[in-house]
């Protein structure tokens, strides 16, 4: 850059250098660690052809992966037990080896504890289920017995009485069967998950051909299953069957359905005894389980205190080894060779870090730092701060700047919010936006740590953009004189007043100018008049064109700076110059006409001037005359515009062709004269630089460019009219909400209607005007920058600088 001005860091990306580091193997780890802290070096992968497990440090990475797995296991366990790891950013002063041992021990301990706990828990749950079975089945037996007794009694009483017809005959037979021949009914009790109970019953029925009796009772509370340890709703079942085969089948079915069976005795005394026993053991187990849980909780607590530090350490180590894997091992296996990009200003810091690493690791030789020459295009690196980064993001979203290309981000900081504000001109809305974004900025520190929602996160990231947008929209709002669509007489009285009392219905014709012109912005008297729209439209349209032409000219001028910076004279003479002339001879002239018309107050129709400038440049101007000599000027401009088209199109491809031929000639000389080294360098760079000069391709490319520019000059200028269109839409919408909601509600003289009206007005203002309109104006401003502005000069085919830095790893996890 020239020495005249103070350095503008954001305008060109940082000068970068390709460096080679030769690091002794014993200090490599520490070096990588220090460089990661510094975060100003982007390593190149020198082992791209090797698969991950063939690289030098694959085993270490595997170790780190294993540690990370253990940590995830701990985290999982902690979350289940309800501990949250303590946040801490301090470094763990423990080496990886020690940590490995420690984590291994902890894991083994925890697993053992879990296994023990699980065993106990399982026994506990089983007992719990057993108790339920005892209770429920006992109830059933009890009720069955009592009803049987009753029946028996009834039967007995009937026997003593007269013989009745409704006593089943079979009963007699059954009673008379010889007890020795009677089949002994077996039974099984247990618990079955409720959702499976129907299927269970069905299968039992099918398997035994209906020769069973099943009784199920619902257990009200969900029961913890001993095997899966989950809470499940279950039924207690009791199944009677006869025969050994049926029993086997039922056992298998029980197993298949995950139904837990429990022994059960018919004897009431034994039942009571069993219940007591089970209750006693339950309470006993409970204390054991609790003690185990407490112990485990303590262990997890100690882990939780250290967890974040360990996690950080492990992640850092893994990152270091991943980086070291990108370095190539020297043939002697004593040092690692690294290549990478770093900004030139960081040279000192990197060397410092290397020196410190060499000293701290007691290495006999320090690392060697040397710059390399390369034809490869370096990465693009802008040093942004929290204010500029969001604007740079807007540019990067379109394309990352080529290395050292003029960065539109610089201008975007001002032009983006300004163009937004032209479309969003209302100082009431501007203030709302300003307050909202002020909230983000004031609470910046707190919010930047927190995890925000998707949309909030985005808004928060762009808080400074929104701040600028709101400030500018307050400014344009003052110019448009709109406060929620209401004009105010902020800068003195209106210049116009009624000529007499009869002009109350507000037409401009009834007004006369009584004072000097309203000093700033739009005269409030325009509001609500019949000619308000024609006046504003004409004003805003013309303003849009002026802004557009100005911004496009800026774009073309930036292309000059680019060409000059890269020493590309062809681009200056055969691209920049004709483009500038073409644009300005047509639309620059239009802008001048607009200004002249504003200054002179002439009533010439500018459409006609422009149209007849093309259709009949030699015709008499007639009423389209704005200034003397206009015809000549127009003829000259038209001629210039016409001549600049072939100027853009033709010379450049031919010159490039010639240049290329010269280059090849020159090279043949160096081949003979050059020494061996320069020959090598030359041929190297040659192979990178020009493979083959294809004239037709270059020509077609230039043709496309020219057509794009010529057509673009028209369409892009028209495109800037969106400034007017959106601004019109915004002001109309807000006046609709104001007039048709707020004023209408006011007119009813009813508190409820007024309140409803105010609520509707507030929601419409926030939802439609502040959110949707902001978004649409934002998008249109974005488009104007990406397309209309940046296509004049911006290549955007660079790649971003991704330094090896620990600061980045902290965020990108989970």
């Amino acid at each position, binding site marked *: 850059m020239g020495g005249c001005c103070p350095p503008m860091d954001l305008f060109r990306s940082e000068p970068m250098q390709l460096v080679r580091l030769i690091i002794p193997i014993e200090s490599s780890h520490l070096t990588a660690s220090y460089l990661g802290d510094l975060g100003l070096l982007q390593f190149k992968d020198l082992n791209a052809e090797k698969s991950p497990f063939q690289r030098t440090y694959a085993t270490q990475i*595997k170790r780190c992966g294993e540690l990370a797995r253990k940590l995830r296991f701990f985290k999982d366990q902690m979350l289940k037990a309800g501990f949250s790891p303590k946040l801490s950013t301090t470094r763990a002063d423990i080496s990886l080896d020690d940590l490995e041992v420690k984590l291994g021990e902890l894991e083994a301990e925890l697993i053992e504890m879990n296994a023990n706990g699980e065993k106990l828990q399982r026994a506990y749950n089983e007992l719990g289920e057993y108790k339920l079975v005892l209770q429920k089945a006992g109830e059933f037996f009890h009720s069955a017995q009592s009803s049987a007794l009753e029946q028996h009694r009834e039967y007995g009483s009937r026997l003593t009485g007269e013989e009745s017809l409704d006593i089943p005959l079979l009963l007699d037979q059954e009673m008379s069967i010889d007890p020795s021949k009677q089949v002994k009914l077996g039974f099984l009790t247990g618990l079955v998950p409720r959702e499976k109970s129907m299927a269970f019953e069905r299968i039992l029925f099918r398997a035994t051909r209906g020769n069973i009796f099943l009784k199920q009772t619902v257990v009200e509370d969900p029961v913890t299953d001993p095997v899966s340890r989950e809470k499940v709703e279950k039924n207690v079942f009791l199944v009677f069957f006869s025969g050994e085969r049926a029993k086997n089948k039922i056992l298998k079915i029980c197993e298949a359905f995950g139904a837990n069976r429990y022994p059960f005795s018919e004897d009431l005394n034994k039942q009571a005894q069993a219940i007591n026993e089970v209750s006693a053991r339950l309470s006993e187990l409970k204390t054991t389980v609790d003690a185990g849980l407490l112990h485990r909780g303590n262990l997890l607590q100690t882990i939780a205190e250290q967890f974040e530090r360990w996690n950080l350490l492990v992640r850092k180590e893994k990152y270091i080894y991943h980086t070291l894997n990108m370095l190539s091992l020297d043939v002697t296996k004593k040092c690692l060779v690294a290549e990478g990009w770093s900004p030139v200003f960081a040279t000192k810091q990197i060397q410092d870090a290397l020196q410190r690493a060499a000293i701290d690791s007691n290495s006999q030789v320090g690392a060697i730092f040397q710059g390399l020459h390369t034809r490869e295009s370096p990465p693009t690196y802008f040093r942004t701060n929290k204010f500029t980064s969001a604007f740079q993001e807007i540019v990067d979203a379109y394309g990352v700047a080529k290395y050292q290309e003029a960065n539109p981000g610089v201008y975007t900081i001002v032009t983006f919010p300004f163009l937004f504000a032209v479309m969003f001109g209302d100082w009431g809305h501007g203030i709302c936006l300003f307050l909202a974004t002020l909230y983000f900025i004031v609470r910046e520190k707190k919010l930047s740590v927190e995890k925000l929602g998707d949309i909030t996160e985005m808004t928060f990231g762009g808080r400074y953009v929104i701040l600028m947008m709101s400030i500018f929209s307050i400014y344009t709002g003052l110019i448009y004189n709109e406060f929620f669509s209401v004009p105010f007489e902020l800068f003195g009285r209106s210049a116009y007043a009624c000529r007499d009392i009869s002009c109350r219905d507000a037409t401009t014709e009834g007004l006369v100018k009584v004072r000097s012109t309203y000093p700033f912005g739009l005269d409030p008297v325009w509001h609500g008049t019949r000619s308000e729209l024609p006046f504003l439209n004409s004003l805003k349209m013309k303003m849009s064109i002026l802004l557009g032409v100005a911004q496009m000219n800026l774009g073309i001028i930036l292309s000059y700076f680019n060409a000059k910076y890269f020493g590309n004279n062809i681009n200056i003479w055969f691209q920049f110059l004709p483009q500038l002339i073409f644009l300005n001879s047509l639309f620059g002239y239009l802008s001048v006409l607009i200004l002249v018309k504003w200054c002179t107050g002439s009533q010439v129709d500018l459409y006609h001037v422009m149209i007849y400038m093309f259709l009949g440049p030699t015709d008499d101007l007639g009423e389209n005359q704005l200034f003397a000599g206009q015809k000549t000027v127009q003829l000259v401009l038209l001629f210039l515009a016409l001549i600049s088209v072939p100027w853009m199109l033709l010379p450049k491809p031919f010159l490039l062709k010639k240049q290329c031929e010269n280059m090849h000639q020159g090279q043949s000389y160096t081949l003979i004269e050059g020494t061996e080294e320069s020959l090598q360098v030359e041929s190297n760079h040659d192979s990178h630089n020009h493979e083959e000069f294809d004239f037709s391709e270059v020509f077609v490319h230039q043709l496309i460019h020219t057509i794009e520019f010529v057509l673009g000059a028209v369409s892009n200028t028209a495109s800037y009219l969106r400034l007017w269109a959106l601004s019109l839409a915004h002001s109309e919408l807000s006046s609709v909400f104001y007039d048709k909601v707020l004023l209408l509600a006011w007119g009813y003289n009813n508190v409820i209607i007024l309140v409803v009206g105010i609520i509707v007005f507030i929601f419409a203002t926030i939802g439609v005007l502040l959110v949707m309109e902001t978004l649409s104006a934002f998008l249109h401003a974005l488009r104007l920058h990406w397309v209309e502005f940046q296509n004049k000069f911006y290549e955007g085919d660079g790649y971003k600088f991704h330094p090896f830095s620990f600061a980045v790893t902290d965020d990108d996890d989970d």
Partner: protein
Amino acid sequence: MYGFEALTFNIHGGYLEAIVRGHRAGLLTAADYNNLCQCETLDDIKMHLSATEYGPYLQNEPSPLHTTTIVEKCTLKLVDEYKHMLCQATEPLSTFLEYITYGHMIDNVVLIVTGTLHERDVQELLEKCHPLGMFDSIATLAVAQNMRELYRLVLVDTPLAPYFSECITSEDLDDMNIEIMRNTLYKAYLEDFYKFCQKLGGATSEIMSDLLAFEADRRAVNITINSIGTELTRDDRRKLYSSFGLLYPYGHEELAVCEDIDQVRSVMEKYPPYQSIFSKLSYGESQMLDKAFYEEEVKRHCLAFEQQFHYGVFFAYMRLREQEIRNLMWISECVAQNQKSRVHDSVVFIF
């Protein structure tokens, strides 16, 4: 109906088709396989797979890995994807997706029944079952003694029930008739699936007919080869062939009378699509036939993705993933048993 799927397909099937195509993009490529084949230990395999879509499924496995763990986790991924798709699917796609699992169901039934016959532990058998072919009462299968019971007790509730109509006998189960049962069921399943796809019409029926016909023909060849030298009669053998496919019906007649592998070969070489498969094999060899068929199958499944707006992609994707899991299993087995020279024997590259 044909030709207008494009108009309406995306209403219900568009999202899932996009999903399945996305999944397909995650299949391992030849470069991945080359890397995997160079692995020294199972940990290397894990490390390599952690960079693929299998990563999240393997990352929490502690270090001494086993082949079964790898296969299990990879299958789990497939099952998760399948379940996700099934949840999102509407009719008739959901039915179509369910059809895909019936094959596994048949395999599981046969596995359990054979296992119980040889008095294995049911729990152990259940672990070996393919998770896609699980159904509620699968464990109850162990209770059954003969096919009638099998049907009456358990399978009547499953979608397999209709396929049983042909093979209900009261004979006790033994290895031979279990195998016959498997093939009869599979035949009925394929025919039913085929009919279902025909009913769907459009590109789905066109593509699925092709894929299923290949499947049916492959089964016919396998049945023939496996039944050579057993007591299965020709008529019985013919009954096991599905009633569609390229070989139906004349090829089946000829296959039914084949007595050795070379006769099978001479039958198959009359059919141009299969000629190329058999021309790769030397005479009298049947070992490499499986691989040759798998390769052809993979090729056909990949081609199914070339056309849009049909359900064949779901079927093809599931099959490709299964092939991939088979490949992974083979590779990890070879690595685990230090048989790296044999790695390429059975790996079928998908891309």
